[in-house]
């Protein structure tokens, strides 16, 4: 297996970038309209909707980070947390990107579709901080709920719990993890004194509960997610 690169390259000896392929690609590049042309009106429309949202909404909407961050070259989207038309804006703008930020659990559920579970047993003191998703094109493949402590602990650190739900083609076992029963489903847990990581599968979705919490707390969260399906 250490020689896999060589083996694969030998097996693909006839798979090469031909000069015509490169030429064809370059020709296409300069024929194809740059998406910036589409993004400008899109952003303008989004801005107008945001302004309308602020104008018609008495309270200030949730603050939106303006870091304009990109990750690995793919545009990171922060959906506009306007109470007016937010899902439409996020859907509209998410056409050619693969990262989303949702303003509510309901919005994330709608975007993710079947299999989305809402945790009902979050440890005391933790509050939902953000809901993000990633995927390809307009298909949300995974959603992560991030909870943080509402007040810093005695050691001055703010603790986090992340709950990720990801669509998968099949389930697998977690090597080296302890198997636990989660209301009839198998969970895989690994915990230290301060952190715990738990994974389980339901249908074609994998769920991860990871954070600065106790093993029992992670199990309780997972069970509450499964319980929500009954």
């Amino acid at each position: 297996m250490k020689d896999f690169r060589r083996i694969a390259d030998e097996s693909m000896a006839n798979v090469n970038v031909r000069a015509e392929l490169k030429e064809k690609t370059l020709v296409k590049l300069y024929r194809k309209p740059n998406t910036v042309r589409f993004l400008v009106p899109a952003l303008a429309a989004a801005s107008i909707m945001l302004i309308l949202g602020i104008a018609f909404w008495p309270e200030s909407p949730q603050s939106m980070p303006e870091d304009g961050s990109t990750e690995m070259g793919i545009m990171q989207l922060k959906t506009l947390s306007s109470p007016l038309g937010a899902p439409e804006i996020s859907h509209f703008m998410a056409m050619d990107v693969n990262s989303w930020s949702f303003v509510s659990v309901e919005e994330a559920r709608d975007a993710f579709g079947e299999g989305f579970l809402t945790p009902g047993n979050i440890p005391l003191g933790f509050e939902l901080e953000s809901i993000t998703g990633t995927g390809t094109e307009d298909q949300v493949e995974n959603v992560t709920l991030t909870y943080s402590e509402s007040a810093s602990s005695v050691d001055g650190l703010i603790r986090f719990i992340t709950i990720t739900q990801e669509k998968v083609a099949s389930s697998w076992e977690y090597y080296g993890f302890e198997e636990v029963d989660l209301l009839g489903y198998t969970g895989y847990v690994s915990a230290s004194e301060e952190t715990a990581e738990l994974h389980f599968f339901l249908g074609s979705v994998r769920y991860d509960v990871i954070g600065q919490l106790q093993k029992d707390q992670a199990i309780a969260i997972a069970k509450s997610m499964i319980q929500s399906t009954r």
Partner: protein
Amino acid sequence: MEKEINRLIDLYGQDVLRTAYMYLKDLQKAEDVFQEVFIRVFRKYETFQGRSSEKSWIIRITINLCKDVLRSAWLKRALLTDKPVEEELPQEGESLESRVAQDAEDKLLFSEVMNLKTEFKDVILLYYYHGYDTKEISEILKVKEGTVRSRLHRARQILKERLEGRVDFGDADERF
């Protein structure tokens, strides 16, 4: 920009094309993906801020595009048969028998990797073909590093089972 795209195609084009081929098992489709990858790279190059390597970014786009293509039901039907690859003659000093036996083993391994489910193929190709470590793979696939390790472990188990232990992963690889 044209100069830059030329550079990127020269540097990473072969990796893009072969990665796409390993997912799609069809040269024509791999070439279509190749073109689309560099069109996207061209369109998004200005948003690339160097938080990962250029290669990681381009390979990630490639993998995502291949997955999109694989989702298409008509293509899944079209991919039922693999195209044969050209045979190579044995090198000087190498017996035909041993070369044939080694070739058969290599082709079997390559074929089994090509037939892995996507989530396992992802990690095997990124780890063994592109040489990324588990942290880099977790960034490319946007999954936890622990998940990458588990998938690598499971993928190796599957390959070992299918190849009846004939595959050597090396001691260092058994960490996961």
